[in-house]
């Protein structure tokens, strides 16, 4: 078995021996010449590089839109990467057709990213409400259209495809409907099986002994902004697919959130919604869909910045933090973990494993305020959380 990172790229099994820290977008554009994925900012703020990443989850493929400029190539192993080229058919997909019919593309640079984001929405969103479709493209900046035509394209699209997509029950029927409508190519219906074969044929290599200098990458959504070009040349310790960091699980008196749980995981978790009902709504104020799909709770905490929205919320909820180094672990209050701006009570080699949030029997009252220049997709000028 050849070494390297194995995954499905659009309809094709692909293997690469490029360094795992290479940004996915560079692999797509430079190695594969898939130039429909564009570089607009390299900080996850424009959405021009949006691709879908599908992973097997409970027997089906779960797709998420991600910013490929902030995505380590090593983390696509065993997944399905979908670029705009992977969605194209002989003509136009319904998403593309809606953009053409409404004139929702001018210079065209941002258009593939928008098409990919909306296709991801059609693949995964439960109710396909128009306002949620708008939320799905909050991370896609368009400088030409003023978004009015994009809104019209979204409305037209949902008018045309929503009933058929929601008609079937279950994920398989939905995927079949999407393929029938041409939203995705027919080969999407076989991806789950192919991913299964892929992972069976090439089990993820056992983590080799990592040197102390390895850079720990969870979501990478801030690390790639700060140190992107350098990461291609460094040894990485990728946490997002590693056992023991993902997931959200209950305990009698608290809720555990794995350090590699993403903001999107929190928003979708029934456990979170039950324990802290307003929290998923507040989390819509955090960044954009592409970044929420990837940014982790642990990453937001170790960033040790007062603008980290999750840090503020978790402090107000009086969370504890679990730290791990090899077989050793310790726990302390989050408020004791932060020592100052960008300063942490974190020992060399230690990583964040989980956050534990107390759940009171009578429930917790939580409020979060974030004031920024923009309502969404922005860094807080002021953020505050109150937990009672």
């Amino acid at each position, binding site marked *: 078995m050849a070494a390297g990172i194995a995954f499905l790229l659009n309809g094709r099994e692909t293997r690469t021996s490029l360094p795992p820290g290479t940004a996915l977008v560079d692999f797509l*554009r430079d190695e594969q*010449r898939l*130039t*429909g*994925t*564009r*570089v*607009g*900012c390299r*900080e996850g*703020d*424009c959405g021009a590089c949006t691709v879908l990443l599908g992973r097997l989850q409970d027997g089906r493929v779960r797709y998420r839109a991600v910013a490929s400029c902030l995505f380590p190539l090593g983390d696509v192993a065993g997944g399905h990467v979908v670029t*705009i*080229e992977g969605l*194209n058919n002989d003509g*136009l997909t319904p*998403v*593309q057709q809606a*953009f*053409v019919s409404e*004139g*929702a*593309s*001018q*210079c*065209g*640079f*941002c*258009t*593939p990213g928008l*098409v990919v984001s909306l296709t991801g929405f059609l693949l995964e969103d439960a109710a396909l409400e128009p306002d949620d479709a*708008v939320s799905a*493209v*909050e991370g*896609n*900046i*368009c*400088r*030409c*259209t*003023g*978004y*009015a*035509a*994009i*809104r019209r394209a979204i409305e037209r699209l949902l008018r045309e495809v929503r009933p058929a997509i929601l008609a079937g029950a279950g994920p398989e029927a939905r995927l079949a409907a999407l393929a029938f409508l041409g939203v995705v190519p027919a080969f999407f219906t076989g991806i789950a099986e192919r991913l299964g074969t892929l992972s069976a044929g090439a089990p993820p290599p056992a983590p080799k002994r990592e040197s102390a200098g390895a850079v720990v990458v969870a979501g990478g959504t801030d690390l790639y*902004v700060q140190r992107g*070009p350098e990461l*291609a040349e460094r040894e990485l310790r990728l946490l997002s697919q590693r056992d023991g960091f993902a997931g959200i699980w209950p305990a009698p008196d608290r809720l555990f959130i794995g350090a590699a749980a993403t903001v999107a995981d929190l928003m979708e978790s029934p456990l979170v919604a039950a324990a802290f009902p307003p929290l998923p709504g507040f989390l819509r104020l955090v960044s954009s869909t592409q970044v929420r799909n990837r940014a982790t709770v642990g990453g937001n905490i170790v960033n040790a910045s007062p603008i980290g929205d999750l840090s503020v919320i978790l402090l107000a909820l009086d969370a504890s933090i679990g730290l791990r180094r090899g077989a050793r672990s310790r726990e302390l209050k989050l408020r004791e973990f932060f020592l100052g701006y960008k300063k942490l009570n974190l020992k060399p080699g230690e990583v964040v494993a989980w956050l534990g949030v107390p759940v009171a029997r009578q429930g917790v009252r939580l409020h979060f*305020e974030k*004031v*920024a*220049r*923009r*309502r*969404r*997709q*922005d*860094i807080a*000028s002021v953020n505050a959380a109150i937990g009672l």
Partner: protein
Amino acid sequence: MKQNDIFFHGRGETLYADDLGGFAGLLHAAVLPSPVARGRLLRLDVSAALRLPGVAAVLTAADIPGENQIGGILPDEPLLADGELHFAGQPVALAVAATPRQARQALAAVRLEVEELPPLLDARQAAAQGSLIAPPRTFALGDVEASWPLCAHVVSGRVETGGQEHLYLETQAAVAVPGEKDTLRVISATQSPSGVQRIIARVLGVPMSQVAVEVYRLGGAFGGKEDQATAWAALAALAARALRRPVKLALERREDMRLTGKRHPYSSDFRLGLDAEGRILAYEVTFFQNAGAAADLSTAILERTLFHAGNSYRIPNVRATGYSCRTNLPPFTAFRGFGAPQAMFVLEAALFQAAEKMGLEPGELQRRNLLHEGDELPYGQKLANSRAARCFDQAVSAFDLEAARERVRAYNAANALSKKGLALLPVCFGISFTSTHLNQAGALVHVYTDGSVSVSTGAVEMGQGVNGKILLAAARTLGIASRRLRIESTCTRRVANTSPTAASTGADLNGRAAELACREIRSRLLQVAAARLGAPAGELEIRSDAVLRAGQKTGLGWEELVQAAYLARVSLSAQAHYATPGIHFDRASEKGEPFAYHVFGTALVEATIDGLRGVADVDSVRAVHDAGASLSPLVDRGQAEGGIVQGIGWVTLEELIYSGQGRLLTDTLSTYKVPDIRTAPATIEVRFLKDAPNPAALLGSKAVGEPPFMYGIGAYFALLAALRAFRPEKPLPFSAPLTNEKILAWLAE
């Protein structure tokens, strides 16, 4: 469908400069910027950089074979710094290496020693020190001084408008490819292929004929690639020439934001006098334009500021003076509106203050002063085909201004912590380059023997839909289906001496040139058809791919006709040139008829302020817009909507912040905010003025690119109206952008 750009946009198949492949041996270049806003270059040692892996060369001013000069209007801008440093970001050296990463690593190894000097950043300070790009200019009409005593109301004040980053999503890029006999082909993301060609020839010391510049398309430009794409193309050309290898230079976002110029910040003083009925009698205004460190297009932009000092209003006595001030910021440049938005903002601020003083709705004051047919404009032109009042009145009735005012009043009465405001914004914008000589264009049309047609013009497609409009004009003129036509890339070898695609004139000028070339071919083909059918050519026409005689089919189709013409040795190619007739302007007297026509419109903007959080929302923008007989309502609506949101961004959201040392601090998308889908108003409604063909442009249409930008200014005044509802007495800020921070501070102080 498939000849449409948007079909390929949706599929991600359109190619921007950085997407192009197929350059064997391609090297990548990166620019070393000046770290200081003002200083002297003491030492520039590239030897360590040259030893790094992959590095092919590090070029400095000493390596320029021709003139180290890229100034378009004035020769005041070196390509690479030579001794003196004039702004932070000024190119100092160019590293060329096998990969973009290696080129940037090489830059880090260049040893640069500079003596930093205190920079001059403020326009008024520059003017006081005599640091000007050019002597000040004044446009005058009537007698301002004699008018003041006649005024019942006089308001005066100072107004600030900030700069604006273009934030085209495609950053600046160029690829230069050496050919045989010392020729060079340069693919540039520029609005001005001939400008790039001229400057490259100058920098390399070669004739222009040796340099071909080609543009496929731009991923947005908005004026930011009119003059400012040139440096990067010239640097790529310099490296390709020196190394005899293809060289690409594509700026990263942060580099682009730091190194390139933006919309000019202005600081302005005004005095406005009105009679007791609210009619403007006199307006005096002085504009201090922060031009940055080099002229770029600043003088032309200042000129348009002066042309539009009166916006859409009749002002019998005007004196407008403009200073273009040289500072140590990156040279400011063209941006949609080209100096007009800054001018209109000042007059709207003056009218707002006058309305408050007189206890009138600003909209009422605006209405009473609208331009009418035959009014003399400050630059001497008499207004023709005025639609100012028509647009204004239609906006008032179509969008039910009275109901909107009542809605706002009711909301404000019911809400203590949240207030609404509304504003009207009439716009009158002159169409033509104000440098008269630029109002010309060329086209080259080939009909191939299979009947397919290739159309080249000087127009650059950047999302404004110019190619689609030219296609339409050419297809209509030839009488054939548009699927037979192809609009080619813009290349200086096919169409020479092009004007930039700018000033909203792209379709007007190039569409006309294409139309003329197609007419020429049509006329030759009809001669061929006449000979073949034995009918007078005057009775024949081509429609729907067929030759008709007196409206009846003749059985002669397009393809057969083209074949017949070829066999008869009739030329199937034509070149044509168009020059806008009747326009002129005398810069000695500052009088003339600079514009072929004007575009009119009026917008109604509504906004809400959350007073607790200081968060503003622009709820809706509705406009009645004069697009003439639109060639493509879909395209024109998109241009209007996009312009409106950019305008809103300029006055509410987008803020350039510099350090005291003149370094840009807002140099990323996370620190410089442009509107996202939630910031843009959920309601944007553009209605086109009906039955309004324009006799002065292509097929009755009107230019559309720039004028709608200025509707966005209405957002500022809608927000002021909302602020006024919170605090009836407090003086209001007249300093754009009015960001959430400023709103909160105003409410809290």
